[in-house]
């Protein structure tokens, strides 16, 4: 058993070094994206095209998921609240759950699965087919031309998608609570209006979605840019995008929530 110990320790050391190296390389990529900030916005057409690819094409999955999540919240919320005779508060429950937590978090998870994987696979394949090398040899920085526009597109798209998610989710909750269960529509909207605070709930939700947008897009871009130029390499990178983005979003959600409640 002891025979294999040095090998296991060496393997652990290698993985630790590789992990630290990847964090450093990701941070360097983030720095380069900021370095090429002005150059990126000189090509607004590229950013608009990427907003279409990452944001607009993610709309369907976001809107449909949000409606179902809202309906489930409506059902579960009513089931619990009616025991305490406060079923009119269902509007508040649905809205606060969506705006504070589910909107940013579920949107980020869906974004990582839909747009993040597409970004990683596209950039990984561009690398494997030497398109990024060709760009470098044409004295055009791939970070400025390929990476940065996608980053800013993700940064802009995510809060809008999260806001849409929350909005459609509330409509889903309304659909279950008011026409189906029979909760009073006036109570549903008025309690929601009275209880949802702009600074504490909506702004905090927007801050979360901005942070998740940065993290999910950066992970997707880095995994694609760093992928070994083979079919297996791109496949593994795509998987890592979903796994790392999901873990990062859920971990950061806890940290951000702790800060927001503490503040």
């Amino acid at each position: 058993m002891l025979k294999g110990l040095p090998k296991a320790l060496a393997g652990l050391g290698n993985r630790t070094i590789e992990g630290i190296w990847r964090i450093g390389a990701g941070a360097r990529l983030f720095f380069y994206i900021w370095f090429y900030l002005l150059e990126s916005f000189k090509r607004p057409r590229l950013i608009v095209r990427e907003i279409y690819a990452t944001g607009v094409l993610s709309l369907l999955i976001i809107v449909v998921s949000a409606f179902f999540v809202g309906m489930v919240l409506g059902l579960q919320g009513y089931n619990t609240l009616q025991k305490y005779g406060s079923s009119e508060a269902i509007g508040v429950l649905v809205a606060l759950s969506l705006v504070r937590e589910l909107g940013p978090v579920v949107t980020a998870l869906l974004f990582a699965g839909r747009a993040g994987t597409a970004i990683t696979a596209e950039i990984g394949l561009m690398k494997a087919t030497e398109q990024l090398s060709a760009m470098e040899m044409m004295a055009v920085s791939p970070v400025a031309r390929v990476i940065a526009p996608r980053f800013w597109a993700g940064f802009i798209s995510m809060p809008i998608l999260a806001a849409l998610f929350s909005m459609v989710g509330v409509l889903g909750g309304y659909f279950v609570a008011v026409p189906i269960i029979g909760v009073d529509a006036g109570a549903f909207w008025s309690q929601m209006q009275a209880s949802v605070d702009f600074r504490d709930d909506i702004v905090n939700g927007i801050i979360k979605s901005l942070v998740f947008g940065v993290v999910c897009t950066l992970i997707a871009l880095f995994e694609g840019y760093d992928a070994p130029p083979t079919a297996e390499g791109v496949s593994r990178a795509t998987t890592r995008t979903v796994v790392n983005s999901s873990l990062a979003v859920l971990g950061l959600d806890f940290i951000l929530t702790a800060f927001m409640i503490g503040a």
Partner: protein
Amino acid sequence: MHNIMSDNIVEIDNLSFGFKGRLLHKGINMVFPRGKVVAIMGGSGSGKTTLLRLIGGQLKPNIGEVRVDGEVVHKQSIDGLYQLRRKMGMLFQFGALFTDLSVFENVAFPIREHTNLPESMVRDFVMLKLNAVGLRGAQSLMPTELSGGMARRVALARAVALDPQIIMYDEPFAGLDPISMGVVCNLIRSLNDALGATTIVVTHDVHETFSFVDYVYFVSGGVVVAEGTPDELRKSDMPFVHQFVHGEADGPVPFHYPAPDYKKEMLRGHDA
């Protein structure tokens, strides 16, 4: 060649390069005179493509240096390197066309990135280049709609879009049918002469290459094993050159990758 040509646009001086403890190049010296078409030949895995990447500054040598137009490539800042690269055009082995752009947009890409020309002039330039490679009629096609030979020609039009001083070709004949091969040979020579450029061709296709190049370097085992004009090399009695030019299986280049004794290896499997 080192003595008779003094006006060299690319010079490789005592270059050694390797990674993971294995040296791929061990003290390589080469010169590429202005206006000439020079081939770098050698077997698969001999580091020919790596040499192009070292010239283009995508890799840094461990020892020695590459000079392009008098500038040491690996000592340049990013801006300096990009200035040097604007003097170069490179054709990648499989074209490396941008798959989300049409043929026209691919050729227009470097022009739009590096100039502020009005769209009408960009169009004129692109048409000139596409006409030169015979693909003006394919301007609206996407890269996925092109054959291998056509993709290579579009990539060639893109590589020469800004009239570079140095044009580098990485295996331009790989996977081409004889007609496309002849077309690409003629294009390489005629573009070099028309643009007054210097051409570096990395290949292992002997007969096509010898028909149009001015000078050839043979690389094997990390060193330049032979060099000369095609005529000199055809007559050479060096074992390596003879084996390579005549495509012989036996010679100084071994067929087998280094391995333990065959019989012992087979018997070991049975013992276990």
